[in-house]
């Protein structure tokens, strides 16, 4: 792909990502960023819907989840994914700030990483890829 005379690497070609975020603006930004990198992105608005999607479909390679959401927040959702449905899919927490040791809390809940908005598209894509690769090695 060539844009503005520069080669743009589509790092996430063939990767299916589930994004759970209750803020429609954030959903749109995240989806756009990841789609530009070649990913297939599906969005949901809370943790319950995220769990539902993971139970219905097995094609997701990674989940990006907002920490603060109604019904089931990012922490509860991840714990459910790990402990109840026993799914070890890479889960990356999304947050607007890193107050209250958010990273520690994310890891404790079973997430693989935590990123702070606004994030850089390339850095986020590389992080997602590295989490998927690590997961593949583990399995």
């Amino acid at each position, binding site marked *: 792909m060539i*844009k*503005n005379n520069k080669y743009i690497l589509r790092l996430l070609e063939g990767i299916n990502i589930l994004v759970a975020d*209750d*803020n*429609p*603006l*954030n959903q*749109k*930004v995240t989806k*756009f*960023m990841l789609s530009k990198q070649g990913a297939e992105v599906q969005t949901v608005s809370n943790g319950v819907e995220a769990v539902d999607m993971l139970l219905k479909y097995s094609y997701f390679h990674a989940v990006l989840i907002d920490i*603060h959401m109604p019904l089931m927040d990012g922490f509860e959702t991840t714990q459910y994914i790990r402990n109840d449905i026993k799914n070890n899919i890479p889960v990356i927490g999304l947050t*607007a*700030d890193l107050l209250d040791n958010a990273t520690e809390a994310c890891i404790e809940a079973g997430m693989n990483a935590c990123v702070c*908005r*606004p994030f850089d*598209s390339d850095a986020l894509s590389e992080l997602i890829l590295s989490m998927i690769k690590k997961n593949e090695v583990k399995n």
Partner: protein
Amino acid sequence: MQEEIVDFSFIYEMSHNDSTYIYEVIDLFLKSVPEGLSKLEQTIRESDDFLVIQKQAHFLKSSANVIKVSGMYDNLVKIEALARAQTGKEEIVTLLDKMLIVFKDALPVLEKEKEKNRLLIKSKAKK
């Protein structure tokens, strides 16, 4: 140099000036943020429910990071922190009032930018 009341640089840079995307993001911002601010205002003026104030400020903070209305993000950070500490109701009201005044001035700027991108989409479609 006078500071711009609205900073659109994030969405322009991220989308590589994609008018359709910029139009949609501004449209979504205009549909969701005034409503969110109004909910925050109502909670602050009519209750002392610090948890709801904290959550609503946090929710709006994410949007304020995408299209940056002058001072909005910082004021929301302060409101969220005060509400988390369950203190400073007067300061919260002052911050809210400041934010609402600026947001009212920002609305026509947002509308203008949205319209500009709508026209760009239209002209591209004609080519």
